[in-house]
């Protein structure tokens, strides 16, 4: 298989998950799309010569850096815009995450309950702290090893285990008894 074909296969395998991860982090479809596109380009330009087994942690590391850049720019933008915003405006206070409906309704039918649990879990993952969400998604969803997750997150393996453990603990608490049935 040629390098281009291998890269195409790799990117097609991660693009949707990467987009969803970026969208969870930045809450903006267009920004998430730009982040994923930029990450793809950077991987190809800088690391396509690397071994294929290294692509996934490298790709998610690039993605993470792009998301971090986005948040840095947002902080600066908010500081600048803060000078022009009136105090006590309606935009202050709860953000879109807190304003989102909780979705805790209990349905009688099992299938519907499973659906509700799934939705609740999705929202719980969405509101996890950034590092915990990263560790959880990379370990559980992308199936990266602790070592590769640490490489992608640019932290120690111990930190990955801590973030992951806390994420699981939080999700257990959010779900309560739902997943024990």
């Amino acid at each position, binding site marked *: 298989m040629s390098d281009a074909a291998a890269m195409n296969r790799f990117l097609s395998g991660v693009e*949707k998950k990467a987009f969803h991860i970026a969208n969870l982090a930045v809450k903006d479809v267009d920004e998430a799309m730009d982040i994923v596109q930029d990450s793809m380009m950077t991987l190809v330009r800088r690391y396509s010569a690397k071994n294929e087994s290294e692509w996934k942690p490298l790709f998610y590391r690039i993605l993470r850096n792009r998301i971090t850049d986005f948040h840095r720019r947002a902080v600066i933008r908010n500081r600048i815009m803060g000078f022009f915003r009136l105090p006590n405006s309606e935009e202050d206070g709860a953000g879109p995450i807190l304003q989102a409906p909780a979705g805790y309704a209990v349905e009688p039918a099992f299938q519907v309950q499973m659906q509700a649990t799934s939705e609740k879990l999705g929202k719980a993952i969405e509101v996890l702290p950034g590092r915990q969400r990263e560790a959880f998604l990379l370990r559980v*969803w992308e199936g990266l090893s602790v070592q590769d997750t640490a490489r992608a997150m640019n932290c120690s393996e111990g930190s990955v285990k801590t973030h992951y453990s806390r994420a699981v603990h939080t999700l257990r608490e959010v779900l309560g008894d739902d997943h024990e049935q």
Partner: protein
Amino acid sequence: MSSDQDAKLISLAKQALDEDVSELGEDIHLRLAAARRAAVAEMDRPVLFLKGPWLTTAPAAAGMPATAMAATAMAASLVLAVGIWSMRSTVPELPVYGGEDAQLAAQNMDLLSDMEFVAWLVMEEEPNAG
């Protein structure tokens, strides 16, 4: 909590995430595919190190990286700028009078003094002329 319960939690989480991804719109799929194709197309494209008539190209995996090339160009520019600055900042030499120039200046001063003396002499002698 048992590992079975954790496994169930993880399974549910995967299911929730997969559902979220499956609900992505068709336009998202198309945009992602377009982004992927553009990225893959980059693999065969030669990397341009510099723009201009001295343009050089090389495959992405070989040769000097663009960043190293840019750094080298910047260093060369810096050396050139420092050189020009040091040349321009030297104090210009003041004219030194000496030799023939000094003699000429002295002669001119003597001539001027003589002319003043002659003019005074003429003024003094005029009243006695009549």
